């Protein structure tokens, strides 16, 4: 390292020169603006060809990583921190939002804003509820919600895929996995989605904040109830956690549970809406995916994840001076890892701006990378696939209505949709109405103890099996 000698003369102008040299590659990156959404392909190409790591003065000043190599290295770099030090007890790092979201500034965003060893401690508690084997047990539950949602609309020949399907299924499932009665899904659904697409200066912001407050009250009520009278689920998993011999602060637990809720709702909705919209425009591909679903649904899902990248990226803080991806970083500097841009890097994905449902070598970035890989990725994929095949079976000829389609104005956080109306040939109901189904599903959760972690479920199964 030569920086020690060059930085040894303590003068402001030297420091400024050092900064200028390090930040030679600059790009004004405003990913919250509508222009970024409109010019995403150009921005991506320019940054990848000219930078691919650049300093941007926006949002208080931060680095942006735009290429697959740079994002790969930085996401897995030990000198990069996720910590959100909301009480100023450590180094004051700001977590994963760039800029820091006003609403989120007082509460840490769960395990996504923790470093080791705290992160792994909580993650290992949550994993047994969210592994591929654990999620598989929920498939009959998921199918019932999906078909009940479709039944509500099947006789009319009209559906809004966001409002009437893709918002409801992830919300109902996530609540059931948490251990919250599924009938409460409406308390949780709107504030979670609205918080993502409502800018802080919107006239609707106070209403959304109030809905969020009610959500918070219900969540903490459930936490206290479950601590007093345990019932299976993710809340129970964290309710009695002890770290370093002590109980974590309840606000910390609410942050973890809120992350599960936020991560479980809006991302899956966004993926489903975008895939359904694309399949409406590409009916030959839709027919093919439906017919060849047994072999094609897995690679197609990974390709939709790559192309639509529901969670656009993550913020980080540099925890130690380091040189990564040909860039000299200084401790304390902020960094944006763009999963969305890395996913369109032609050096890793041939024809990156084309959807190829059979794409090979699709090591996309949509679940993030490294130890913070999306813990709910198995849930998201399963819910998405069950919704997709049910739509193929029940409304195979659906046509989306571009006039009524509403995309989020900003794709800075979640690349989502507010509305995706469609028409289709009406069909008969096949299941119970949604309200009755929710009652039935609550019973199913309790009878089959679906919300138990897999470790306990397996032990119960082996205890119940006849021994010889």
């Amino acid at each position, binding site marked *: 390292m030569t920086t020690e000698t060059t930085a040894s003369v303590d003068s402001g102008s030297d420091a400024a020169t050092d900064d200028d040299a390090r930040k030679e590659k600059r790009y004004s990156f405003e990913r919250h603006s509508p222009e970024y959404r409109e010019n995403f392909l150009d921005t991506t190409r320019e940054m990848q060809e000219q930078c691919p790591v650049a300093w941007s003065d926006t949002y208080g000043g931060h680095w942006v990583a735009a290429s697959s190599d740079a994002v*790969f290295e930085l996401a*897995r770099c030990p000198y990069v921190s996720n910590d959100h030090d909301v009480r100023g007890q450590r180094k004051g790092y700001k977590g994963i939002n760039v800029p820091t979201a006003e609403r989120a500034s007082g509460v840490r965003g769960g395990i996504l804003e923790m470093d080791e060893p705290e992160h792994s401690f909580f993650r*290992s508690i949550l*994993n*047994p509820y969210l*592994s*591929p*084997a*654990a999620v598989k047990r929920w498939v009959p539950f998921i199918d019932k919600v999906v078909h009940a949602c479709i039944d509500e609309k099947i006789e009319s020949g009209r559906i809004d895929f966001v409002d009437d399907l893709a918002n409801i299924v992830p919300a109902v499932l996530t609540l059931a996995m948490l251990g919250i009665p599924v009938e409460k899904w409406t308390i949780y659904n709107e504030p979670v989605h609205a918080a993502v697409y409502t800018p802080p200066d919107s006239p609707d912001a106070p209403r959304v904040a109030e809905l969020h407050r009610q959500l918070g009250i219900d969540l903490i009520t459930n936490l206290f109830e479950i601590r007093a009278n345990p019932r299976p689920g993710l809340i129970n998993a964290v309710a009695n956690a002890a770290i370093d011999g002590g109980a974590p602060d309840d606000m910390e637990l609410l942050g973890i549970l809120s992350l599960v809720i936020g991560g479980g709702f809006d991302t899956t909705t966004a993926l489903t809406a975008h895939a359904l919209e694309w399949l409406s425009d590409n009916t030959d591909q839709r027919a093919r995916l439906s017919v060849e679903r047994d072999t094609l649904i*897995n*690679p197609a899902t*990974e390709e939709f994840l790559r192309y639509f990248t529901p969670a656009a990226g993550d913020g980080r803080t540099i925890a130690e001076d380091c040189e990564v991806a040909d860039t000299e970083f200084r401790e304390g500097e902020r960094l944006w890892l763009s999963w969305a841009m890395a996913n369109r890097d032609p050096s890793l994905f041939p024809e990156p701006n084309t959807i190829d449902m059979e794409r*090979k*070598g*699709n*090591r*996309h*970035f949509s*679940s993030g*990378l*490294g*130890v913070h*890989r999306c813990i709910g*990725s*198995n849930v998201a994929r399963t819910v998405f696939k069950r919704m997709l095949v049910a739509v193929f079976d029940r409304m195979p000829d659906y046509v989306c209505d571009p006039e009524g389609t509403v995309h989020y104005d900003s794709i800075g956080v979640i690349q989502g949709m507010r509305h995706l109306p469609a028409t289709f040939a009406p069909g008969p109901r096949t299941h119970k109405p949604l309200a009755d189904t929710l009652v039935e599903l609550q019973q199913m959760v309790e009878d089959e103890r679906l919300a138990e972690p*897999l*470790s306990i479920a*397996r032990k119960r199964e082996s205890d119940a099996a006849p021994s010889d």
Partner: protein
Amino acid sequence: MLKVNVDGSRCQGHTICAMVAPESFELDEIDGHSTPVNAEVPPEHADEVREAVRSCPEQAISIIEE
């Protein structure tokens, strides 16, 4: 003969290898982390395993052609 190894310290449980090569990788029930079913890959699964190597987001899978 193709030999395969999953670096447990790099694997984060993305599960893509088991989708691409279901005969060759098994996932831990609790955290979804992957291990090879056999270190030695039968010839009929070699192409799938090579594809899994290319598809791993963490680049945690390595192969040796012997």
